[in-house]
């Protein structure tokens, strides 16, 4: 087991900059508030969530049939469907297509799946220039960083920092911090790429089984820009992105943008039904661990995720620890439930990076019981022997102490005496608590002492 920095260690570093952590918290909370307003404007919001949950549960239970239906219909429309068992196969397929078409420059719209597969470095190592065209994605790409949020990849950066970055990488004048001006410069830079790229890659928000169509949702129109000109469109889709019917979009599209950014609908909802005339459409359908998760009845609900990011925005821990404190490319509550399914050892700290407040479960548009999923992963991590032995021993001792009334009462009395008599030592032993908090009071009498003294007549 490789030693990976725990969430707690990385978060402690992020928290050190008080002004920055509050700025980050507020920036992300602002999006949560927009989501609240947007969701309240839909009277049947809770019914929509239930509907979405039911459609996803049904689809996941019949996934192989719907995937085959999708393949048949997409093929009928003229698309070519490829199946990738894992990230490696996905990358090979994409590279094979690009090589076949002689592509030297690929423009990409937002896709967490290609982040998961580490497609960019794979292609770059093979001499292909890859340009992420979502503004936030482009910013973090220029900064040689992964996205810190699944919907707002550069939410951790201040505009001054983006100005510096653009100065260094795009040659903008020093000190440019006006968001509008910066966006304009990025736009000009990206236009050039759109004009010259010979292939465009998009993610997929929804693959429709009954039509074989694909739906891609963006706010910048970059998926359309990237697929309108080049002769090759590659769409990378996780197997869980299937919806049975076109009518189901009426449920999911109403939920997605409102949950993600508080918009009633995203600026662009692009439907691709077969290739554009004179071009080719290849859909790469990727498993990469998803069917293994599907087989885990207790954990499969996480596959219903539509990647809106609402659970990140509401998570008080994400907002105060930032996307980079998570050891997986998808941060926040949903990332912390998906990551241990891939490698419980490497991501053992993530299910514990939560106060189990449950806000994630209540904002989730497809009603994934995220905080219960995290709890389930905690049990799994303990069962696999991945909890630090000291913690397990402490719990075993506490469990023993609580199993007998006499020992519980005796240890309680001893504990309170210790707290009262030697608070300095107690504080030193409990630094995790006392570094920033006082110890609790240690009354002479417990509740049961008082109760016996005042209520129980002998």
């Amino acid at each position, binding site marked *: 087991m490789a030693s990976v920095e725990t969430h707690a260690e990385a978060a402690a570093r992020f928290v050190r900059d008080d002004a920055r952590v509050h700025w980050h918290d507020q920036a992300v909370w602002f999006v949560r508030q927009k989501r609240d307003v947007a969701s309240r404007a839909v009277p049947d919001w809770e019914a929509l969530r239930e509907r979405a949950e039911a459609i996803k549960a049904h689809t996941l239970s019949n996934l192989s049939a719907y995937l085959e239906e999708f393949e048949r219909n997409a093929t009928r429309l003229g698309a070519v469907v490829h199946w990738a068992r894992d990230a490696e196969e996905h990358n090979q397929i994409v590279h094979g297509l690009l090589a076949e078409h002689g592509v030297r420059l690929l423009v990409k719209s937002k896709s967490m799946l290609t982040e998961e597969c580490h497609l960019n470095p794979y292609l770059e190592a093979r001499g292909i220039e890859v340009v992420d065209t979502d503004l936030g994605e482009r910013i973090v790409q220029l900064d040689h960083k992964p996205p810190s949020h699944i919907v707002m990849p550069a939410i951790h950066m201040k505009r001054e920092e983006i100005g510096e970055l653009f100065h260094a990488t795009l040659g903008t004048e020093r000190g440019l911090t006006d968001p509008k001006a910066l966006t304009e410069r990025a736009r000009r830079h990206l236009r050039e790429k759109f004009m010259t790229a010979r292939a465009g890659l998009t993610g997929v928000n929804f693959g429709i089984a009954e039509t074989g169509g694909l739906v891609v949702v963006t706010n910048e129109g970059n998926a359309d820009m990237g697929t309108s000109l080049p002769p090759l469109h590659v769409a990378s889709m996780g197997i869980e992105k299937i919806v049975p019917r076109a009518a189901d979009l009426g449920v999911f599209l109403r939920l997605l943008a409102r949950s993600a950014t508080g918009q009633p609908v995203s600026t662009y909802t692009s439907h691709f039904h077969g290739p554009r005339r004179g071009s080719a459409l290849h859909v790469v359908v990727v498993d990469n661990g998803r069917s293994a998760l599907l087989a885990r009845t207790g954990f499969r609900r996480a596959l219903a995720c539509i990647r809106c990011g609402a659970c990140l925005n509401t998570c008080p821990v994400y907002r105060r620890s930032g996307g980079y404190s998570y050891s997986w490319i998808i941060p926040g509550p949903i990332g912390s439930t998906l990551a241990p399914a891939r490698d419980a050892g490497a991501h053992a700290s993530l299910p514990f990076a939560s106060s189990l407040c449950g806000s994630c479960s*209540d904002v989730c548009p497809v009603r994934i019981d995220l905080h219960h999923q995290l709890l389930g992963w905690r049990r799994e991590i303990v069962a696999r022997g991945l909890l630090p032995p000291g913690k397990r021993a402490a719990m075993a001792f506490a469990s023993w102490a609580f199993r007998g009334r006499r020992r519980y009462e005796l240890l309680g009395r001893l504990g309170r005496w210790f707290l009262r008599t030697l608070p300095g030592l107690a504080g030193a032993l409990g630094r995790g608590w006392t*570094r920033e908090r006082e110890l609790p009071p240690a009354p002479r009498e417990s509740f049961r002492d008082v109760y016996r003294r005042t209520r129980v007549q002998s």
Partner: protein
Amino acid sequence: MVTVALFVPCHVDQLYPQVGMAALKVLERHGVKVEFPEDQTCCGQPMANSGCAEEARPLAERFLSVFGGYEYVVAPSGSCVSMVRNHYPDLLPASDELESVRRRTLELCEFLTDVLHVERVEGRFPHRVGLHRSCHGLRELRLSSGSERNVPAFDKVKGLLSGLEGITLLEPSRPDECCGFGGTFAVNEAPVSTLMGKDRLADHERMGAEIITGVDASCLMHLDGLIRRAGKSIRVRHVAELLAGEA
């Protein structure tokens, strides 16, 4: 007359006896016969929330045997009640006994509103009170509607408190954000936990609260620890103490 077994969570028993006594007083004042089964210890939540199911299971079994025979089990804690009601099925095999205990275990405020149908609590509490909606009471027991969901607004705790004479109830700007206690999270992730707590305190202070109240002594213990370290004047009191008329 309704007979209730008072479930006093271990941290309340050991550290906050006044909260247990206040709950007892409130129940008796509403005509309830209260018993305190002395064999009770801990519901097993610290172990269960750490993923230590094997360590939690014997405590869940113990809880069933201690409380199995009572008409109702009532606790001044949302979190421990949620453990019994929502998480025991993860630890114990399904049984009629389990179902029956789960159904009859209630948090103090929900027992008052849902079982006794108390509409107004007699008493006086002339203070500016900030309401801390502890997460498990809010999102696992649904003591109030919550800021995330689009459902008609309700709040059982606020409803009871608003009957107290002289009380001014104040809402923080983020009405139900977590205080950061989270059980072992408070120590495992202490820097984030304490920051969350400080942010909650600042929110309540900005609203002008003198006292923060809530249904869980554990959240209040965390906030109180931060308050005393920072030498702040704001105080915490458990809801049971307010309902019992104890400042």
